[in-house]
Structures are given as C-alpha cells and as structure tokens.
C-alpha cells in the first residue's frame, strides 16, 4: 500500500491543545512540513507568542523561544542579527502582532530583518476569551463588542499585510486562507516561498493566515469556515501583496 499522508518530522507527536475545528493546527503543520522540505529544521529557531499559540514550542521539533506579548519580531531580530546562520521565524496571533506588537512588526519589517513571520488572523482574541481584536470585522460580535464592532468607536480592522506591503524596504508579504483544501495547498506553497526568501537571505517575509476560532465565534467548525469565507475574505483580499523586485530585493 502506498502511504499518502503521515506525520511530519517537523513536529513533535504531542496531542495539540487547540479546540476542535481550530485551524491553528493546520498552520503549524504547513510550517513544520516546510522546515523538513527545505532541510532547515536543524538550524531553525522559532518564537512562540502570547495567545492560543503560546505552546507552539511543544509542537515544532526545533529550538524555540517563548516571547512576551507582541515582541516576537524583536526577539527574532536579536537572534537573527547575532546568529545570521539560523533560520528564525515568529508565530503570532492578531492581538499579539496587530495590537500590542504593532511597533515591533513594523520596524522589523522596515529594517528588512531576514526573518519569517507567520501571522494568524482569526479576527478575535482567542486565548483571553473572545474579546475584540484589531482585526475584528465591522459588526462582528465579540465579548467586548456585544453590539458588534462599531467602527465609529473602534475604527476599522487593521490590514497588516497591506500596511507592511507599502513599506519601501524590500520584503515578501502574502495573505492566505484556511477555508478550503485548495487554499491550504496554496498556502503551503506561499509558506515555503516565504522561508526560501530567508534561506537565500533575500528579505523579510510575512504570511498572514485567515484562520478560524469556532469556540469564540460561537460557530461549529464547518460554520466557521463558511463565516470566514463570507465575512473575512471580502475584507482581507488573498494573494501576494508584495514580492521583492528582481534586482532590488535585498541582497539576492
């Protein structure tokens, strides 16, 4: 019999703590597969954030930091600048990256740090119980926007990929989604590309994942995928928002 799916060596076989239907787990898998396929696991250093993915260090089979809330790109900067031979990646949620850590991600991207950031946008604060995130969709109900996000009071959701894409510094910025197998396959290619830019020392790379939070959205796993497709995709367009221009991209 031909084996068509198996455990990836990039991950530790620890049962995950994520809720049923949460797409955090799939995103882990894509990153872990990439570490193996590019043969970089043994020189990789990952950085786990504060949020539902605080325990990523239990799942990736590589050296890991656990960082303070929002500062993963600063920790990554310290690690990469001191040991450029390492492959350094951050894994962050939207509260972590787009609220408390906005400064760190923008400046790491703008300095052109040769790191890879995996950004999980689930439009909510998962770990703390479903409060409004900077990425919460207008009208979306959360535990701190019981009447739905009111843009007059709370402003509009931050589009981090678009914000980072407009920086002058060369970089790779893409947004992908976890709502269908086809999109997951597409996401995998983009994650791989993002890491390849780091391996070739080309530029900063950033992949935003649209991800579900069935628990705090109050929806079933399938309803969550549909809600994401119908509500998040129109606001957060998928695709490569920035690629390093040939000849101008970093040191490539």
């Amino acid at each position, binding site marked *: 019999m031909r084996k068509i799916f198996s455990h990836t060596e990039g991950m530790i076989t620890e049962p995950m703590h994520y809720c049923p239907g949460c797409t955090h787990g799939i995103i882990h898998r894509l990153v872990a597969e990439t570490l193996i396929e590019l043969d970089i696991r043994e020189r990789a250093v990952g950085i786990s954030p504060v949020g539902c993915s605080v325990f990523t260090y239990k799942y990736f089979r590589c050296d890991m930091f*656990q960082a303070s809330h929002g500062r993963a790109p*600063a920790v990554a900067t*310290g*690690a990469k600048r001191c*040991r450029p*031979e390492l492959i350094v990646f951050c894994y962050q949620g939207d509260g972590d990256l787009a609220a408390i850590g906005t400064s760190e991600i923008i400046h790491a991207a703008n300095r052109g740090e040769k790191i890879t950031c995996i950004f999980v946008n689930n439009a909510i604060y998962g770990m703390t119980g479903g409060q409004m995130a900077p990425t919460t969709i207008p009208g979306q109900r959360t535990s701190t926007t019981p009447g739905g996000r009111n843009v007059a009071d709370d402003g509009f959701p931050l589009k981090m990929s678009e914000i980072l894409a407009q920086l002058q510094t060369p970089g790779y910025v893409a947004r992908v989604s976890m709502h269908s197998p086809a999109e997951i396959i597409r996401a995998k290619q983009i994650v791989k590309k993002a890491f390849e830019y780091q391996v070739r020392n080309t530029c900063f790379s950033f992949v935003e994942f649209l991800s579900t939070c069935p628990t705090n959205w109050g929806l079933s796993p399938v309803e969550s995928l549909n809600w994401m497709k119908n509500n998040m995709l129109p606001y957060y367009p998928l695709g490569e928002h920035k690629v390093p221009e040939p000849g101008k991209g970093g040191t490539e």
Partner: protein
Amino acid sequence: MAKILMKGNEAIGEAAIKAGCLHFFGYPITPQNELPEYLSKRLPQVGGRYIQTESEVATSNMIFGAAGVGVRVMTSSSSPGISLMSEGLSYLAGADLPVVIVNMMRAGPGLAGILPAQSDYAHATRGTAHGDFHLLVLAPSSVQEAVDLTMLSFELAEKYRMPVMLLGDGMIGQMMEPVSFPETEVGPPMQADDWALTGCRGREPRLVSSLFLDPVELNAKNHERFARYAVVAQNETRYETFNCDEPYDILITAFGVMSRVCKSAIVALKEQGVHVGMFRPITVQPFPSAALSEAIGKARRVLDVEMNMGQMLVDVQLAAKGRVEVDFLGKCGGLTPSIEDVVEAVYDSLTKAEGGG
C-alpha cells in the same frame, strides 16, 4: 597599558568590547548617547554589530533574543528608557539569560530632567518589574571603576545566568577621567553550548522560556533562582570603606559619584577634628548588609547621602537594625549635595548624637 583620557560612556563601550561583547542594541536617550554612538563606530571595526531599535521595549526583547542564542550582548539607556525595559528584564530573569544593561540615571519621575541623579536605585534593586527576581546591580564611582565593573558585569551575568545592571548616573557617563584597559583586543565569545538556541543539529530541541504554568514547577524554579541569588550575595558582595580604620562618630553611607563628594567632606572634617567614616556599597543588589551593619555598630549616628529623596536609605536603615538613628541628606532634580552641604549635615548629626536625639 598606558592611561588614556576618556568619557565614562565611551569607556564603558570600549570595556564591553574588551569583555568580548560584540552586539549592542539601543535607543537614544540623554545622558548616555555617547555610549551607543561610540559603539556604532567601534563595533563594526571588530566584527560586531550595533543595532538602533525602535523603542526600549523592543530593545529589552532583542537582547532576550540575542542572549537566548548564546551571544554576549549589552544595551544602555537612562531612567525613562529603563522603565520601558522593565518587561524584558522580567522575562530575561525568568528565562535565566545573561545580559548587561547600563542605566545612566537622570532625574525623575516622568520626563523630569536630563541632569544626573540617583533616581532609580529602588527600581534597580527592588521594583524592577513584575515577579520574583533580582538583577545584580553594580554602582561605579569613577570612570576606571565603570570600566572594571562593566567587564565584571559580563563575567557575573554568565556565571550566575542573570541580567546584570551597571547603575551609573549622568555624571559618570559624561565626565572625562584617565582610564586603562586590559591588553586584549576583544575578549573570547560567551560559553553557552549547553543551553543556547543554536539549531538542534545532533541534539534534542531546546526551549528558552519564562512560562511555567505548573505551580509546583514554578515554585521550584523560583526557589532555585533565589538559592542562586544567595550564592551571589555570599560570593559577590562588594563595598568600599573610607577612613574607617580609625574610630569615627558618624558613618556616612553613599553610592556612586555621591561618595566622592562625601570623601572630600570627610577629609575637610578630619582637619576640623571631626571623625567620620564612609561606607560605599559597590554592589547595591546584593546589598552588603552584614558589612554595613558591622560598620554602623562602631558609629554613634549614620548619615545617608544620595542624589534622590532617600532610596538606599531603606537598606541603610535595615542594616542599622534600630541601634542608631539614620539621618538623610538628599538633593535631586539634577542637584548634588555639595561638600559644604555634607559637612553641615555631619555637624547636625553630631549635635543630635550628643543631644541623644
């Protein structure tokens, strides 16, 4: 090596290189700017890197990343910037990472002033950030001592796996004094093979973290850390005494540059027939309580002199153990008690001692 004339801030930068520190992360703030400026020029000459950060919050987390991959690293700042580093300092302590942080203190609170002060003694020694931890804090009183203690800071940080702070003030940073350095060009790299994150080739993956959700494990971790602090207190407590070999009536306590003014006052008082000793902690954390307590035992009264509203005063009072009164002379905002101020305060203390007050 021959002595050269150098500003404190620059001398500390050179001392870091001699100690083998090739990475510096920092954000500009007066009165320590000469230090990062010096290193931005010098580090590339010796194969090192200077990185200007977007904030001190970021700085404190960058040095977390740098130390975590086993590289010797330093940052420097001044009071308001050190406040912003509190987050990182707590995480650094919680993950047992060795780093050196320079605080060239200025007047506080708030944005306050840019002139020298000793306004962050309490922050450095007690209320640094959330959680149970200490820094190891060294307080130099001259440029040469700043050089020596900078080099010692790295050694102690790595030996005891903890963040070390060099607590200076704007005066130490700005004044020029003759200094000498060891002959070495650049010290050897940090030894961190058994714990640093360097990629897991040929070994199990490692973790650098301050997260311990299991209360039993966290309790044990903090007890282990405090047992280490006890060893630090046992082995590394440093202080200087001045004019304490002869009997004295008043004992002055002072740290950093303030002690130099006090020494001049003591010399002047000696000529007037007044016997005053001085005790200067060099490590302010761990505080040399036992030695100070012994010195206080020979005095009729104590006078604590600081460039703040009385922060080390608490430690001096604890060492006095209620046996004698502790008077306080302090100026802040960028003002420094003068020799005359100290002389006058000593006479006041003497009067009170004689009046039994």
